[in-house]
Every structure is written in structure tokens, then in C-alpha cells.
């Protein structure tokens, strides 16, 4: 509850800091504010409760998810270099919007009422529409912003239709009350068509937001067109918050009608895994490959939702942290390398730009290798344990076919995740050495260290829950 208050206030303070002559103060100030929110978040540890007239729930699970979101936000904001180049004339607004979007993300982790879910989704999405289009004169950025905006509002419309139908079945927006009604319907065999239509549309709307197949078609275009720093934000924080929301609504309200929705979710899981992994193999752009990889990771995280065991919440926290750390390092390396070489006035984001990275900057090549290994799920990295936990969740419900598909698709994943590593270590280098600021190095060091640490000692995080 506290991070929502903190970030709402500090966001406004950041807007006022924009009046200062020196724009250099904005980055440290924002980092400080996010750190403040992070510790305010931990303050509620082991003190579960309902806040704002039963609108928001706080328990250890929501606190951990918010902590993952705020940690990723801190690392991403630290990689921004303050937006003080010419392209970003108004840095204060970007930092303020980032903080406001975190408010939406945190609401999505702990909503107790569907009104809160809607508001959270919209705060996060509308902020992301603005940030996607922040590169105003770039046509590809414009296109990405329009596509994201139209697809996002379309998804919101579908989600709202689902919520309205659920209201018709339950006559309440409270998710606990919804569970009572659903349980009654199951026990009396008296089912309402509004309930089933509502669950279906609500799920489709939310899955649009986390870009699970077959609703992923906007993802590669938007991820490629948006400025890389905001792509990182989209692929980590939006995904974590979206899965928190999906898991929460299905676990709290609709676990009594598991037999209704599991077929739908399994079909989407399998589609996400197959479509994304097969398409990612043929991608020449590193950013586009990471976009498809994010769709495939949506598929893996859906396996935890399908499993819905008593360990699923831990798996979702662990998976989102492992995935966020690896993705932030990968995009961090891409940002550092791609700005060296321009194609049509834009940073070159093909896989070929990584050629010979081990000679140009061994540190970056190492970071890239670890992040790719973690995304592929090689043992001794966090990604391996993330996959292991979601697979055991799916096995808990006995979905063996799903497991077979998932393991086959991880094998396909290894092929394309190794392409950047091969480019970095085996190919000849063309460019000059790349120099980094010490701060940038420290942040990338933290993400990589986190990936390795969680890979060696996964119980560090699991024992918290």
C-alpha cells in the first residue's frame, strides 16, 4: 500500500524538479524515490491487510511481486543516463510517467476489487503508450505507439466487457465475493452464462496485455519500434504485473471452475511456446528476437497459472525475477553496443552488431552470455530454476503433454539464444572498443550477479515465501 502513496507523491515532486535549471539532478532523485518506495513496500512485510475500503490487499506475495517490479524499475531507470540528450527535451516528464506507471503495476499485484484492476491496467498502459511514442520524429516509434495504443485500448475494451458480464453474474466487483458466488454456482449446478462469457473475455483482455499467443501479433512491432529503454520496461514490468493480475484473479475468484478455463489457458500456453520459439529462430534483429523470446516466456509463466498448485505463486515470483534480471542485462548490452553504429539514423539492432564483442569489450560479452544462458534455462543460472519450478507446477496437475511441448520448445530456444553468444565470441570484430561509465557497469554487474546467485542458491528467494 505504501509504495502507491510514495510513488504518487514523488511522481508529482519529479514534475516540479523539472523546473530546475540543471536536469542532472533528476536521475539520482528518481533512483532515490524508487528506493524509498522499495523500502516502504517492505515495511508491510508479515502485516497482511486490506486497504482503501477493501480495494487493495497486501500480503507477503503481493509485497514480493511489488519488490520484483520496483527492483526492475530501479535497474532500468539506472540505465537511462538521465534522458539528457537532444531527443528527450523533457526528462522530468519521462521520469514522472515512469513512477506513475509503477503505481499502476503495484495496483495490479494486489487488487481486491475489479475497479482497482481496471484502474491499475489503465495507469500502466496509458503511461506506456506515451513512453512508446516518446521519440516524436521517428516514424518507426510513431508506428509502434499507434499500434500499441490501438491494440491496448482494444484489449481494455474486451477486458471491460468481461468485467461487466462478471458483474451481471455476481453483482459485485469484489473478487472474494465473486469466489463465494462461483462456489455456490458449482455446488448447486446452477451455472450462469454471464459468468463463463465474463471469465473468457477478462482472460483474453489480460492475455493481450502480457502478449501471450494468439494475441501477441502487436508485440514484435511495438518492441522493435519503441526506444530500447522503454522496451525493457515493457517486457519486464508490464509482464510481471500482468501475470500477477492473471494469477490473482484466477486463483482467488475462479479456482472453483478450473475445469472450465484450463483448456483455454493450455491452448494459449502451447500456442505461445510454439509460435514464438519457431519464429524467433529466423529473426535477424536482436530486439525482435527478444520480443519473441518475451512471448515464449509468457508461455512458460502461463504454465504456472495452469498448474495452480500451492507453490505456483512462488514460481511466478521467481520466474518474473529471473526473467527480468536476464532481460535487463540483454537490453542493457544492446543499448551500449547499438549506439555505436547507426543505420538510417537509428541504432543498429541486428544480431550482427554484436560480432566480436568479446574483443571490443569482454565485460559486455560476458554479461550477454550469462543473460542469454539464463533466458535459455541452462543450469547454474536463475532461468533454469525458473523453468524447473513452472514445469513442476504443470506436472502437479498431470499435464504431461504440455511438459513435452515445453521441453521441446526450450531446446529450440537454446538454438536462437546461442546465436548472440556465437556472434560475440566466434565472429571477427569490426568496430572499436566500447567504453562504459562505471555506473552502467555496476548496474549490469548487479543483474548478472543476481542471475548467477539465484542460479546457485534458488532457495534464497524460495525460503522467503
Amino acid at each position, binding site marked *: 500500500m505504501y509504495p502507491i502513496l510514495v510513488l504518487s507523491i514523488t511522481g508529482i515532486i519529479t514534475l516540479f524538479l523539472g523546473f530546475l535549471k540543471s536536469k542532472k539532478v533528476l536521475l539520482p532523485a528518481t533512483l532515490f524515490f524508487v528506493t524509498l518506495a522499495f523500502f516502504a513496500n517492505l515495511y508491510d512485510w508479515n502485516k497482511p491487510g486490506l486497504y482503501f475500503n477493501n480495494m487493495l490487499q497486501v500480503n507477503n506475495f503481493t509485497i514480493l511481486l511489488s519488490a520484483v517490479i520496483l527492483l526492475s524499475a530501479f535497474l532500468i531507470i539506472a540505465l537511462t543516463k538521465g534522458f539528457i540528450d537532444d531527443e528527450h527535451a523533457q526528462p522530468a516528464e519521462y521520469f514522472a510517467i515512469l513512477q506513475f506507471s509503477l503505481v499502476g503495476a503495484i495496483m495490479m499485484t494486489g487488487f481486491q476489487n*475489479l*475497479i482497482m484492476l*481496471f*484502474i491499475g491496467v*489503465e495507469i500502466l498502459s*496509458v503511461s506506456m*503508450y*506515451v513512453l512508446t*511514442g516518446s521519440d*516524436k*520524429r521517428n*516514424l*518507426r516509434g*510513431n*508506428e*509502434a*505507439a*499507434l*499500434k500499441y*495504443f*490501438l491494440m491496448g*485500448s*482494444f484489449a*481494455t*475494451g*474486451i477486458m*471491460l*466487457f468481461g*468485467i*461487466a*458480464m462478471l*458483474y*451481471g453474474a455476481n*453483482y*459485485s*466487483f469484489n473478487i472474494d465475493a465473486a469466489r463465494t458466488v462461483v462456489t455456490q454456482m458449482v455446488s448447486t449446478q446452477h451455472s450462469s452464462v*454471464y459468468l463463463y462469457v465474463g471469465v473468457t473475455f477478462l482472460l483474453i483482455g489480460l492475455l493481450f496485455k502480457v502478449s501471450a499467443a494468439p494475441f501477441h501479433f502487436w508485440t*514484435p*512491432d511495438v518492441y*522493435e*519500434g519503441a526506444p530500447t529503454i522503454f522496451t525493457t520496461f515493457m517486457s519486464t514490468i508490464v509482464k510481471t504485473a500482468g501475470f500477477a493480475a492473471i494469477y490473482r484473479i484466477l486463483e482467488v475468484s475462479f479456482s472453483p471452475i478450473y475445469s472450465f478455463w484450463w483448456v483455454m489457458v493450455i491452448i494459449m500456453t502451447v500456442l505461445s511456446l510454439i509460435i514464438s520459439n519457431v519464429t524467433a529462430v529466423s*529473426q*535477424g*534483429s536482436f530486439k*525482435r528476437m527478444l520480443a519473441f523470446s518475451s512471448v515464449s516466456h509468457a508461455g512458460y509463466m502461463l504454465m504456472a497459472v495452469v498448474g495452480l498448485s500451492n507453490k505456483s505463486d512462488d514460481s511466478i515470483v521467481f520466474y518474473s525475477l529471473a526473467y527480468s534480471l536476464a532481460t535487463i542485462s540483454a537490453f542493457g548490452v544492446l543499448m551500449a553496443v547499438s549506439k555505436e553504429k547507426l543505420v538510417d539514423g537509428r541504432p543498429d539492432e541486428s544480431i550482427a552488431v554484436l560480432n566480436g564483442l568479446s574483443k571490443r569489450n569482454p565485460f559486455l560479452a560476458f554479461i550477454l552470455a550469462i543473460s542469454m544462458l539464463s533466458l535459455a534455462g541452462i543450469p547454474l543460472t536463475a532461468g533454469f530454476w525458473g523453468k524447473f519450478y513452472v514445469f513442476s507446477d504443470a506436472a502437479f496437475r498431470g499435464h504431461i503433454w504440455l511438459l513435452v511441448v515445453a521441453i521441446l520448445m526450450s531446446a529450440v530456444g537454446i538454438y536462437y539464444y546461442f546465436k548472440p553468444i556465437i556472434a560475440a565470441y566466434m565472429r571477427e570484430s569490426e568496430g572499436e572498443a566500447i567504453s562504459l561509465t562505471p555506473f552502467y557497469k555496476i548496474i549490469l554487474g548487479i543483474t548478472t550477479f543476481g542471475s548467477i546467485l539465484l542460479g546457485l542458491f534458488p532457495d534464497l528467494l524460495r525460503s522467503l515465501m
Partner: protein
Amino acid sequence: MQSKIPDIIQTVPLLNYVLLASILFIIGVVGVLIRRNAIIIFMSIELMLNAVNLLLIAFSSYRADASGQVFVFFIMAVAAAEVAVGLAIIVMIYRNIRSIDVGLLDKLKW
């Protein structure tokens, strides 16, 4: 004789309201999928949101439960914020390519 508003609304069966809202919603979905002008697509999305509003109000009146109508206010307020951002994006694109035909936006292909 003066009758209460819920009584008047209830003279029409609930299913009629649901069907009307669903038809409006489907018109909106079809509009999003087949039109090529960004503004028209945008209008279709608004139509979807208003279909949802109608649905919520119908359910709300039938049960004399106010929370549905409160939700409608939230939807209207948030939709206004979305319109502000959406029109800004469309204006930005118009300035760059002098058109708002979504078919012209094909820079991002593989």
C-alpha cells in the same frame, strides 16, 4: 402515478439490454478489425467502451446496486484520459506522414 426509475427500466427484459449491448460491442470489434482510418478505429473502440457502460447500467438498475454505476464513471474518466493520449499520438503521426491511414504504417515488418 409516479413510478421509480428501476421499475420503468424493468418493463424491458434484462436480456434485451444484454443483447443490445452485445450488438454494439460486436459492431465496435468489427470496426476495429476492418477499418483503416485511425480515427474511425478509435471511434469503434469508444463504441465498445460505451456498450460496456450500457451493460453495467442495465445490470446495476436491475439489482438496484450502485457499484455498477460507479464503475461507469471510472470507465468514462479513464476513457477521457485515453482519448487525450490517443489523439496526441494520432496528431504526431499526421504531422510526420500527412495521413492517418494505418495501412501506410508498415515500417515494422520482417
